[in-house]
């Protein structure tokens, strides 16, 4: 987690470190978009409007809708609500899917 000497660590165990790194990065991002879909759509809406963002918003909304229908987004909201209840924190991050 921390205090790691970059020179002291072993190298990747797999024979394909670049392939593994690419899979880890993109699969993680994809899973996160599926699990917390509102994060991407909210971000795209909040940013200054450009054609690229407008273009990206439609697939992001599509993904959000798929995630909502499959119930994948529920896990985040439930976990977040549980965290709020346990910690007593204020929240403005959860809410309706189209927030």
């Amino acid at each position: 987690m921390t205090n790691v000497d970059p020179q002291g660590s072993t190298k990747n165990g797999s024979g394909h470190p670049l392939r593994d790194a690419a899979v880890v990065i993109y699969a993680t991002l994809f899973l996160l978009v599926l699990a917390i879909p509102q994060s991407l759509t909210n971000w795209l809406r909040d940013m200054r409007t450009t054609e690229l963002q407008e273009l990206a918003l439609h697939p992001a909304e599509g993904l959000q809708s798929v995630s909502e229908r499959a119930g994948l987004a529920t896990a985040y909201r439930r976990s977040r609500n549980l965290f709020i209840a346990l910690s007593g924190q204020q929240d403005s991050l959860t809410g309706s899917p189209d927030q």
Partner: protein
Amino acid sequence: MLFPTIEFAVFFAVVFPITWLLNPYNTCKKLFLVAASYYFYAFWRPEFTLLLFASSLANYLVALLLGRLGDGRIRFAVLCLAVAANLGLLGYFKYYNFFAATLVNAIDSIGFRAEIGFIEVALPIAISFLTFHALSYIIDVYRREIKPSKSFLDILLYISFFPHLIAGPIVRAAKFLSQTATPRNPAEIRLGQSVFLILGGLFKKVIIANYLSTEFVDAIFHDPSNHSSLDLILGMYAYAMQIYCDFSAYTDIAIGIANLLGYEFPQNFNYPYRAVSVQDFWRRWHISLSSWLRDYLYLPLGGNRYGEFSTYKNIMITMVLGGLWHGASWNFLIWGALHGTALVGERIFGLTGSASAKPHSPIRTAFGWLLTLQFVCVTWVFFRASSIDASLDYFWTIFSGASWSTTVTPFVIVIFALGALSHIIPPRWFEMAQQRYDAASLPAKVLVPFAAIFLIAVAAPDGIAPFIYFQF
């Protein structure tokens, strides 16, 4: 652009594949990385990219000149001018108003009136770091430790490379330029280490540093006189944890990201709060800065070569200037001077041993650790407080012992305890976890960062505060 944001995730998702696709065409790759780094920097204020470019160009040309000149006064004069120009730039943006105000106050105090104009200009983000990178390059060329780079692109990339641009670690020119000469080898990617550094960094910044700041530390330092003595004591320790988690998080993420792009950065933190002396602390805290100050300031001043008194003087100069590097205020100067005084004191009383040197008994080591930790935490008050008056007010309230109630919540205690784990868990546990990660199947390698980031997002506060070291 902050690391723990969607902007940066999108930015890196674009930069990562293009960098590796261009890897066989090294010049094209470097050109792309420079463009990406300038975009990263321009996200804050686009106009200061001109400053970044001008500094890179000037230092590139000076290094070429230093490479051509034979040893002698002219060469030394060129170096002095270049160092003065770099420090002048830093001084103009960062220190001019501080010194102008100090001068006005000094003249005013002896009964005269001075009219000195102040400048109203935004401080370019990361100017301290880019200045130290540039100085490292030209001084190493002057010392003939490295040859001047013929490639302007390499220098542009060295100074602007986005993982280290904003808050370090300070990478030496020799180390970085040796990595730009040829395409990077993908086999050098240490995936387990990079993933753990990035996840650990996100956890320390988003959860530990942010919650300690917003839930406890900010309120305490904003108005110390309205808090109890116990709150102020706890606030001191909480800030020590906050600044460690904040700053080490940034450099951990930077090291991890650089490694994913094929570049190696030096270690910047090594369990600093386990230090058993102040000297040991500076071998563990912001290692790239302390070694920079040692090599480019303390040793050129004479180091410990000219007797005890000269050594003490050199330590004090180094630490005071090191303190001032963090910001234009008397508080940073005092913070540096206190650390300098402690280092001198340790030399005088022969207390400089580090844990690895093992010359001392366990009791003496434990006492050294306890004393060092208290000293470091107490001096952080000067680092965090807004002024000397505020710092003194803080200590006055502690010693007045007005009240021993506390506003610390169980939530803050849990967050602090989680932060303390970063110093309690033995390093070999991290290494074992990384090795297991590297040996795991690909789906497991995906699930670990997904689950970790998911949990961080679940517990994240609303909004991410900028990293503390951005201001430096």
